[in-house]
């Protein structure tokens, strides 16, 4: 800083070159976390992603899913179990048909044409990539030492078999999360002590959070969108006659079984 005054003549050149090539933000702490994971799992770590200063992701192979839990808990010290869930990467086959007409206008205005044409969209995976339609992902963290808090999201592709190893042997708390994931996505967790329904009635059919499971409420009655106040029913000009009609109608509807 003290050299600034003497270096002013050279500074513009340096400044501009720095602006043209901004240093890629790095995050050594999270790099170290991933290095630790790779050391524990080897080639099973398929892909990684770092959001510098914020977060870190890793995608592991489905075969090593149970081992991943062991490695993050015992080797890396991420003893805190955050959550476990599933993502269905299938583009919604219903497109914008579930939106209100008002919202669709909004979408066209903003240049969002998805679902306008009938062409099926490409499946597009999120950070750390992916290969299959369903991905199971879990969040664990290392807590308890002030200033040393970190968390990691690990993902794994669930293949055609729609089954993957359970985490309950390592994290007892995965029990309910896996029941929820099984119920909502139909992913079987091999070795889970009791995959039962957690929210839905026992005889419920289907997996509601799958993208190809329609939101039935929307199908029955379309979402009104921004304008959600219905217009008042029209009052007929000849009041008394209209009222008589209405009461007659009510009476008949009460009589009908």
């Amino acid at each position, binding site marked *: 800083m003290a050299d600034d005054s003497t270096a002013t003549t050279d500074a513009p050149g340096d400044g501009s070159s720095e602006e043209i090539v901004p240093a890629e933000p790095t995050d050594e702490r999270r790099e170290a976390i991933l290095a630790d994971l790779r050391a524990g799992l080897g080639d099973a770590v398929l892909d990684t992603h770092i959001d510098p200063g914020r977060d870190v992701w890793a995608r592991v192979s489905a075969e090593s899913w149970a081992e991943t839990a062991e490695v993050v808990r015992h080797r890396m010290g991420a003893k805190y179990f955050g959550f476990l869930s599933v*993502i269905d990467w299938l583009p919604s086959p219903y497109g914008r048909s579930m939106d209100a007409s008002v919202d669709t206008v909004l979408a066209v205005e903003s240049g969002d044409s998805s679902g306008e044409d009938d062409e099926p969209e490409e499946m597009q995976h999120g950070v750390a990539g992916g290969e299959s339609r369903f991905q199971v*992902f879990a969040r664990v963290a290392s807590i308890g*030492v002030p*200033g040393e808090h970190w968390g990691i999201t690990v993902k794994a592709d669930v293949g055609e078999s729609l089954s993957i190893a359970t985490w309950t042997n390592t994290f*007892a708390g995965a029990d309910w*999360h896996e029941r929820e994931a099984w119920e*909502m996505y139909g992913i079987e967790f091999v070795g889970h002590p009791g995959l039962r329904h957690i929210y839905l009635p026992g005889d419920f059919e289907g997996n509601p959070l799958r993208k190809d499971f329609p939101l039935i409420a929307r199908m029955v009655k379309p979402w009104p969108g921004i304008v959600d106040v219905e217009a008042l029913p029209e009052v007929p000009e000849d009041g008394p006659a209209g009222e008589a009609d209405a009461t007659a109608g009510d009476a008949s509807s009460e009589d009908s079984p």
Partner: protein
Amino acid sequence: MTAVTDRQKLSYIASQAADARVNVELETEGMTLNIGPQHPATHGTLRIVAQLDGEQVIRAEPMAGYMHRGYEKLSEVRTYPQITTLVNRIDWLGSFANEVPFILAAEHLMEVEAPPRATWIRTLLFEMSRVAHMILFLGDMGVQLGAVTPVFFAFRDREFVLDQIEKATGGRFHPNFDRIGGLKDDLPKGWIESTKDSMQTVLTFCDQIEDLLLGSEIFQSRTRGIGVIPKDVAMQYGLSGANARGSGIDWDLRRDNPVGLAYPDLDWKVWTHPDGDSFSRFWVRLQETREAVKMIEQLCDGMPSGPIMAKVPRIIKVPAGEAYVATENPLGEMGYYLVSQGGLTPFRLKIRSASFNNVSIAPWLLRGVYVPDIITILGSLYFILGDIDR
């Protein structure tokens, strides 16, 4: 189950042996007790099916789902501004706190940052939701033990805090006040002063509760050593908030990962208690309420001036990406895992609510306890049904 202390194991074996003896002599038959779904201790509609052997629980299983509203599915067909209305209703006693992590996640993906004043007001309302929430807990814990007076104090004094929230946001319970990029409105005139006054009421309430409950012999004997959760088990089940800190885990997201909120600028303390029983969870929450009052006073005094809204487009579209943002809500870690593919609606929104994890420990924790302790243990875990079922 590996993570039981030796002392617990021995006491469990001893009690089982004693019970077996009694059973042989008296030939008691096991019975199944159904608690709920409508029970004052369940804060909504949690049903607990407990298999009993005499007065002891052999196996207890909470049955959730009476209030499942499918928010994860519903948010896939709603635009981002519409979703705050939904998430308000997850933990309905600390509604504003539900909006914040979701908004922060969307802001992070949009690379929008709220102006300092908005951040401070957010933090302020966040802490006020916590105070309103915790006041009810402190009073409610008495009711679980048969002391009816504290809960009336709680409902009376909580109203002072809710009034302030209503003055600022227009809603007592569901403010729907947070926006991507800032807040809906600025604070009304004279609000800061009246808030500071209401905080004095809260401090008095805390002292009253301490006098009424903490020293009481009945309270102590019903909560000390009851429902002990060891550190390691708490982490395995992902217990957060005061439940984790009551087990001696020194962890608070407000201090350890204060994304987008004003906590680093404040002077406050994280309280922990090493015992891990019902009493320690109550004690930690009592201290946290006072700590929150301290924070609110600092936030009121240091409130920066300036705009309350950053520049955001009229139609909110979130760029493709994934983000997990969690905050320390009144009940514990509340996080949103937001997956966006660049559209008007989230592609997937995983809601990690605190109570779901906090209650999932119940089958483990209730094994071997006596029937009346079921109620105090659940009361001390403190959950909101909407926060379990979502």
